[in-house]
């Protein structure tokens, strides 16, 4: 095929140009269709093929499968294979468990030591799969769970990309055209600087820009990695979004000016009897509700997306438990809808990152407004 392309490239007449374009378009469409049709099949990679026997020892539990996929685990479970002799092959990575017990210090061990109801160092798993101590002491679990590992991987990816971009800027300078991945990153960074930071923050835009860019790329990259089958659901975890909202809250408070607080209490043009109602409402709505809404918006959007995709996948297996024909029919409808939801989730991944960033910039800009720049 490459020989043919090189043959065609030698003749630059119009006919050959059109043929080359047609071939590349066709190839591109075929590759896209192939990619689209293979992706939902892997969406729930750890499903064992269902037997039609009602007395099968493992009934398909949709709720348990979904909770396992959207929650955080101490192991990274990829799939199970049921071999012909009845034994199962679990493709699992057991992650390190790091726990600080008050009075006994740190203990770290692989999660494998707690499998099969074993007790290790005073820890064991209870019925729901959570770690408990046998002697009832207080402990703090700071282990490297699935979400933590994915966070660190996303951070490494970001560091790799941005450090290489910064290095090429140092080498090439800003007067020549960018090359390679610089082109993509530069467009996005300038977009954030000119559309998000400068309109909302004004003079402080350059000071806040590192945080805004970090938050934008962090949320976007973690959203996208979470869509890959087998990855962890990081931004759909309320602890992660709570931390991001907390950082925004801290920046809001640290950058707040005295005029902002005075303006909240002394509102001109408002009748006096309204003030006892208005001031608490203003306080709560500006200081508490805004970061809280940031947290819930990102968390709920990501969680809902994963839930929908996983539910459509489990519909196939719930129907397959009834009969093979029902399973096949359900899989046609379910796969088509899952493809649509996957495309929607790609949009939502970028959109939620953008919304978080622009609202963060807006809130930080609001609290730092001085009396002379007032709207």
């Amino acid at each position, binding site marked *: 095929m490459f020989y043919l392309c090189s043959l065609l490239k030698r003749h630059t007449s119009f006919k050959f140009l059109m043929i080359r374009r047609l071939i590349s378009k066709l190839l591109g469409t075929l590759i896209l269709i192939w990619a689209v049709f293979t992706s939902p099949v892997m969406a729930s990679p750890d499903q064992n093929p269902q037997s039609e026997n009602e007395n099968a020892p493992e009934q398909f539990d949709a709720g348990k499968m979904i909770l396992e996929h959207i929650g955080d685990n101490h192991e990274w479970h990829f799939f199970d294979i049921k071999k012909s002799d009845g034994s199962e092959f679990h493709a699992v990575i057991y992650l390190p468990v790091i726990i600080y017990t008050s009075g006994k210090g740190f203990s770290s061990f692989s999660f494998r030591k707690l499998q099969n109801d074993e007790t290790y160092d005073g820890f064991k798993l209870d019925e729901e799969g959570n770690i408990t101590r046998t002697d009832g002491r207080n402990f703090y679990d700071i282990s490297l769970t699935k979400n933590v590992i994915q966070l660190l991987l996303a951070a490494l990816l970001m560091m790799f990309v941005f450090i290489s971009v910064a290095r090429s800027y140092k080498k090439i300078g800003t007067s020549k055209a960018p090359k390679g991945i610089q082109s993509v990153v530069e467009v996005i960074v300038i977009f954030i600087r000119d559309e998000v930071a400068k309109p909302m923050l004004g003079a402080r835009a350059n000071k806040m820009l590192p945080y805004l860019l970090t938050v934008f790329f962090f949320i976007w990259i973690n959203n996208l990695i979470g869509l890959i089958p087998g990855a962890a659901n990081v931004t759909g975890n309320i602890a992660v979004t709570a931390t991001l909202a907390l950082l925004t809250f801290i920046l809001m408070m640290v950058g707040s000016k005295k005029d902002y607080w005075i303006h909240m209490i002394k509102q001109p043009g408002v009748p006096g009897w309204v003030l006892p109602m208005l001031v608490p409402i203003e306080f709560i709505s500006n200081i508490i509700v805004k970061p809280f*809404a940031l947290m*819930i*918006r990102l*968390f*709920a*959007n990501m969680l*809902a997306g994963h839930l929908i995709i996983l539910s459509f996948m489990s519909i196939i297996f719930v129907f397959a438990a009834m009969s093979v024909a029902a399973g096949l029919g359900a899989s046609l409808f379910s796969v088509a809808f899952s493809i649509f939801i996957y495309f929607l989730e790609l949009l939502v991944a970028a*959109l*939620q990152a*953008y*919304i978080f960033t*622009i609202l963060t910039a807006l809130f930080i800009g609001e609290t730092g407004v001085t009396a002379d720049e007032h709207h």
Partner: protein
Amino acid sequence: MIHLLSILFLAIDGNAQMGAGIGAGLSAIGAGIGIGLIGNGALNSIARQPEAMGDIRTNMFITAALVEGVALFGIVVCVLVLFLK
């Protein structure tokens, strides 16, 4: 004279699940109406001034994401009702 619905509430023990289901449905109605209104405004504006289509589309997405966020508050509360005893 006991109202029929109160018999239903007393006899069945799935009140939490029913409340969660109805709440989720109502949230979806709210999101649908809200985003429909946003789309209405956006389409009218594009029809009046087709050269502003890019700006209008951007603002439509942003506003839709904000409205959806509010609807998802309701969904999160319903999910909490289901999973917390």
